[in-house]
């Protein structure tokens, strides 16, 4: 887990905002994309799915054998293996 200190528009420091990788997002919860750590073609493909910073993603369900996981991304349902989802840093929305 990573902790990030962010300075918001009013200049206030918001501490302890929790960032996780998307594969750790529990099914049924939402999160906002912060950044991608993937490189090369994988990064391209993820960007093409609309996974740019600020995009809301909902984890829908895991496949019967636990992987991949289906996500709601910009109106489409996309399945990602945990390897790819691990490269997407998100901020869970509560």
């Amino acid at each position: 887990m990573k902790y990030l200190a962010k300075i918001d528009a009013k200049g206030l420091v918001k501490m302890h905002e929790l960032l996780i990788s998307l594969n750790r997002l529990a099914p049924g919860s939402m999160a906002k994309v912060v950044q991608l750590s993937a490189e090369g073609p994988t990064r391209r493909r993820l960007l093409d799915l609309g996974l740019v910073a600020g995009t809301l993603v909902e984890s829908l369900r895991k496949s019967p054998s636990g992987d991949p996981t289906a996500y709601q991304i910009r109106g489409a349902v996309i399945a990602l293996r945990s390897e790819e989802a691990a490269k997407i840093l998100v901020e869970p929305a509560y």
Partner: protein
Amino acid sequence: MDFTVNSTESGAPNKDLLQPELFPGELVVALAGNPNTGKSTIFNALTGLRQHTGNWPGKTVSGARGRYMHRQKNFLLVDLPGTYSLLANSAEEEIARDFICFSRPAVTVVVTDATCLERNLNLVLQVLEITGQVVVCVNLMDEARRKKIHLDLPALSQLLGVPVVGTNARDGQGLSELKEAVYRVAFNLESLHPARVKYGPGLEQAAAELAAGFGASLKEQVNQRWLALRLLEGDSTILSSLQRHLGLPHPQIEALLELSSKVRQKGGSTFQDAVVSALVDRAEKIASRVVRLENMEQNRLDRKIDNVVTSRKWGFPIMLALLGLVFWITISGANYPSELLSAAFHFSEEKLTALFVRAGSPDWLHGALVSGLYKTLTWVIAVMLPPMAIFFPLFTLLEDLGYLPRVAFNLDNSFKKARAHGKQALTMCMGFGCNAAGVISCRIIDSPRERLIATITNNFVPCNGRFPLLIALSTIFIGKAAGALASLAAAGALLGSIMISFFITLLVSRVLSATALKGLPSSFTLELPPYRMPRVGRVLMRSIMDRTLFVLGRAVTVAAPAGLVIWFMANVTVDGASLLKHGAAFLEPLARLMGLDGFILMAFILGFPANELVIPILIMSYLSTGSMLELESLEDLRQLFLANGWTWLTAVCTMLFALNHFPCGTTLLTIRQETNSFKMTFLSFLVPTLTGIIICIIIAGTARLLGLA
């Protein structure tokens, strides 16, 4: 299962896609769009051709072409591969991009999905960067209505600066408006002001700087800003495309490369993200002004269905139950019509024979034409037509509904463990219809290594040419033993065969990943499209016309001459025995070891042109007369096999070898075309054959050792 007229065409490499042959005065219209937006349905509706359609992304793997006429003008429609983007992540995207960019179609129609417009706008915006000659087609309007999604198409047209047409291609709605819009754009009757995405000062400045350095010739041939942006993104494929399509000399390419890397240094690697983010932002803004959701939970029903069909508890049982149900309906439904057909063919055979006798024709002529050709032909029809006419519509129904991607979703983890691609499940489903079509469908897998694995292992899935053999043997040997539950047991045996072929596919994929095709899985994304209500009437017609009759036609064209050849082989004697018997005697030792006999192995070898032939050849070989007996029912077939020393073990080993042996001629040819490699084609021949021999020897040996047979 692309069994249409175009399937042969789609097997050819895409080289000639960029330079379509044109009639004088004909205008080229490119059809672009995200996968699974109904692009092929629109293509079919406009051209009257029958490209395969179905509810899963990636069915259209190559550019089909068709013609239509509107207002006395001729249009050539080119169906580009479905892509989410033109930023060249894959071969398909490169093809689509190069066609729009370098072939300069008069109009590019971008087909979008009304239920998922925002995501589709990404591609629309990218196309608009290359050319303004665009018509946006918003398809699946009825699905959007059903989901209570309201779209303001005039506003969309205003925001994009090009004509927008709403369609419902499945019902033919909006197609004349689409043709009219294409016509108006093609003949410059429309004032276009295509929307261009603004990328922020840093990127725009860099692009302008780079574009200023382009040579004069380049400036005329491509959109400079677009090219500059691609170079800034570090897209290396664009340079080779420039060289290939515009014949740009090497020094100029080098200069471009140098120039772009110099400008790129200022922005670092952030250009790529900046481009995509700007596109996504713009799409979001446009969608927010055009799309209104009456019901925020638009996908509620889809989610509920998915919660069951892909759940931990029910995912696998439902999958097996559905497949088993399809088999059960096929087997129990096919019996009666099969017998009717047999009786009818038998009746006309007697008439034919009488005719030959009256005409005083020699025995050999009657033998070759009636006992050889006619009987083989009618047997193939009587046995194959009814199950296929039931199996294909049922399978098409599942395909149209959108269930197949769920199967891929459920099974992906197994493929990942085998270091293969989850979409291999989809290519296997295509293989059920025809392995050659399955091999072509492997193009939906981006990574070359995983595509080869899927190609080589596709033959482990029994195609419909092998289904009749599996169905017949399950029915007469396994179903018979079960008594009252005959068709249920036969369906179970069939289901078992499919599961065996699935596990062998995984095992062989894993072995290949560790040996000939070493490597780890590449990245994987799979779209689970919204469920769509299948049009039952349409499904019936399409699957019977396009699939059943096509496959049957192929079987018949192969079976007819083969029937002749086999009749001669069974009747021409050398040293007191027929050619068939000599061949069988030679194969006997290996065949025995495998739990088969020489005639069975011979039938598989002679059945190389088409798997449909294996059973007819076998029947002919068993009959000392050299032609088929009066086989009117499967029971007669059982008696014939029993008389030739078959046991349950023979049936099981024959079924196993039917699942695991060399691909048919057509499939091997397709593999050669798709992989462009003799080595891989040979491997595709060797791997399943060796697998089959080994499995049969192990099963037969074990059974004999345990005294079971």
